[in-house]
């Protein structure tokens, strides 16, 4: 029993320490936000990595997100709600929830892991220390461009995902569910509100911050060589994914409370 309490206590201390260090990293990023202007080249490089290079994966996942959500929505509403509302239900689900969250989870796996691996490798090979000795703040040089890229590119990827997913939904509706293109699109427009789109994009920008901050934090705290970098990479994906889901709930309460 004593050993269990000791173990729990140890994990509590480690967790509180990690939250504290993460908070300090966030504050340091905020304090160095002017690095954006001096690091334009690095910000653009990171935007290419986060955004442009993720497009093929987002394309693939979005098609299936739209298609699956259409099949399952049709299954749920077919005997109760007229199919002319299929576009409404699917469209809002995609714009408010599915596109932002699933895009973020996919990008967390690709980009978050990539950031943790790159910064982790730099940490264990003393490249981060080398930056310090050149009087270059590693947070300013490495983290800020990545955070800015995540913040900007996730909403853009989400817009892309919205379009592709709704396209996928349209194809399934027309080809397999007997809903005409005109019916689907009029349903889509029926209860569409710009505030739904903006809410989805706000979520996406927050998720982008989470992915890049968690990825960078895990990378900069990697220890123990290749094994340590591997552990950091795994933790980056797991922690970012869980945090995205928790943030999704909190944002939903904030924005959609009646």
């Amino acid at each position, binding site marked *: 029993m004593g050993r269990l309490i000791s173990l729990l206590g140890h994990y509590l201390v480690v967790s509180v320490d990690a939250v504290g260090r993460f908070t300090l990293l966030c504050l340091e990023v905020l304090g160095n936000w002017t690095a954006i202007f*001096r690091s334009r080249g690095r910000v653009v490089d990171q935007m290419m990595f986060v955004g442009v290079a993720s497009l093929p994966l987002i394309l693939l996942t979005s098609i299936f997100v739209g298609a699956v959500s259409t099949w399952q929505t049709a299954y749920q509403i077919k005997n109760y709600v007229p199919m002319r509302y299929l576009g409404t239900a699917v469209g809002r689900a995609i714009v408010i929830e599915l596109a932002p969250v699933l895009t973020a989870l996919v990008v967390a796996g690709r980009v978050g892991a990539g950031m943790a691996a*790159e910064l982790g490798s*730099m940490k264990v*090979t*003393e*490249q981060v*220390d*080398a930056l*310090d*000795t*050149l*009087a*270059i*703040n590693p947070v300013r*040089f490495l983290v800020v461009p990545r955070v800015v890229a995540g913040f900007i590119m996730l909403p853009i990827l989400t817009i892309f995902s919205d379009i592709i997913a709704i396209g996928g939904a349209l194809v399934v509706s027309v080809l397999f569910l007997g809903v005409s293109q005109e019916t689907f699109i009029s349903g889509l427009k029926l209860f569409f509100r710009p505030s739904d789109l903006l809410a989805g994009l706000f979520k996406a920008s927050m998720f982008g911050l989470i992915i890049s901050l968690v990825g960078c934090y895990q990378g900069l705290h990697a220890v123990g060589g290749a094994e340590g970098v591997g552990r950091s990479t795994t933790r980056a994906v797991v922690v970012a994914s869980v945090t995205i889901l928790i943030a999704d709930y909190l944002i939903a309460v904030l924005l959609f409370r009646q």
Partner: protein
Amino acid sequence: MIELVGLRKAFGSQRVLDGVTLSIRRGETVVVIGRSGTGKSVLLKHLVGLLRPDGGQILLDGENAAEFTPEEWQRARARFGVLFQSAALFDSMPVWENVGLALLEHTRMSRKEIRATVEGKLELVGLTGVAHRMPSELSGGMKKRVALARAIARDPEIVLYDEPTAGLDPITGDMINLLLVRLRDHLKITAVAVTHDMASAMKIADRICMLHDGKIVGEATPSTIQTTDNPYLRQFIRGEAHGPIEVFERDI
């Protein structure tokens, strides 16, 4: 110029530095020798603020750097150059950007001026025609020389060398030794090197100090070290398993 007074550092229950006292005069090269794992690199990292001591002082021209804020260390590091044991080149950047990074970040020099400066530093370390290569395309000796060029890019007053010949074959290692001597003579820098390579220490040092059990236990010059009475230095330079430095099976 640099004075360590009673420096102490522990990692958990392991006491690595236990009252290190050492003075380094302007313009001299001090080499700290010792067995692997005695804390030589830990000592070096304290000199440039990568580690904070648990106790003691690090006096840089009279100022106690052990109490510096991160911002004060950022300013102080302009006086330093560091050659890391593994070179620590930035593998996403070509050689010229590695060497000129501090100039790119801290000066208003144009890219053309920086490239010219970089070429000059690379020539000083015996490298030409590599400015556009990536670190992965370089041999171990070339990486060390690029890292050396990076360390001296801003003409520092003090250069720290962490195992400068580690991982190099004897011929390349001696080439590095000659480079360090040349830099000392041409640039009049103050240098602190840590190594367990006695041949290297004998060539580059003005003074050799030995770190053992967290303290400096002996000091000599290259000309007097071979005839020293100090039992620690004698055991180390002769490479003997028996002596005041105990060797445990777990260390092997």
